[in-house]
């Protein structure tokens, strides 16, 4: 079965054409949390990096990112970074030490034996606060330290707006069956 990748504009327009043609179809949606260090601060565009500027600094896009102040990453089990720590090296952009979790969102529709797919990643929103924390590096009594938390994006902003007559099924995994019948 062929798999066709679409961008958002193409995917929505394809669905519109199916609705107008009176075709019966089902849209599948898969939303899965990933925390595989795919996105680090060095590769974020400047506009997005500004949201982290209270904690870290860099010269430009894809250059090494260093911690501006000591901080705790609450999402990753309270991982602590010291001032000046290398958070994302320009020499190893694929392996950031500080990473941003994200949702992998996949929309797909199966028609006439083909699967039409639209995928995107939605980054979690960083929230930076100053909190009192205790620990090995912060002392037993605790002290004030910057803390970064990541909030997941709201589901409504991840959803493709579809008319009520379109049914959307949430799925965990899509098994792609290879159809060899055309070889005979």
């Amino acid at each position: 079965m062929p798999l066709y990748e679409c961008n958002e504009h193409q995917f929505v327009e394809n669905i519109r054409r199916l609705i107008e043609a009176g075709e019966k179809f089902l849209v599948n949606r898969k939303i899965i949390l990933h925390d595989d260090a795919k996105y680090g601060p060095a590769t974020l565009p400047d506009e997005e990096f500004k949201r982290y500027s209270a904690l870290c600094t860099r010269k430009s896009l894809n250059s090494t990112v260093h911690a501006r102040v000591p901080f705790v990453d609450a999402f990753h089990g309270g991982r602590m970074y010291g001032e000046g720590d290398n958070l994302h090296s320009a020499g190893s952009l694929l392996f950031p030490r500080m990473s941003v979790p994200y949702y992998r969102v996949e929309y797909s529709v199966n028609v006439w034996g083909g699967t039409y797919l639209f995928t995107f990643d939605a980054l979690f929103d960083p929230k930076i606060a100053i909190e009192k924390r205790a620990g090995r590096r912060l002392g037993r009594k605790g002290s004030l330290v910057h803390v970064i938390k990541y909030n997941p994006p709201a589901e409504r902003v991840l959803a493709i707006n579809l008319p009520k007559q379109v049914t959307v099924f949430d799925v965990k995994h899509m098994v792609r069956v290879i159809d060899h019948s055309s070889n005979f």
Partner: protein
Amino acid sequence: MEPLLEPLSAREPPVPRPIFILEMRITGALKARKGEQKLKSISVLVPLETVQVSLSEIGFLLEDAATIVADGKFWNRLLYSRGEETISVSEEIGDVYPKDPIITICGSKNTISRVITGVGG
């Protein structure tokens, strides 16, 4: 002596006037059309500010925003709503040229045409 009013059960049901049936049909069709949602996605070569002004002029309010990555590019995804109608606007982040926000409209036919006209489509 016969009663002045005959009992209700004995009365014939009122015969609807043809014009009344037509009025009901038109009203029903209009109501159905008003609630019917259409789908449209457009890509326009206008700045995001122009799109935002156009949407606020027709009463759409910003509900939420998220940063997404699609096709290897970072995008700002903004969600606007007005009642049950929703519009999402995705614009690429950074100094890229050309800037062509993708507008996805799920709403009435009238809303779709007003948005397209508003962004110069």
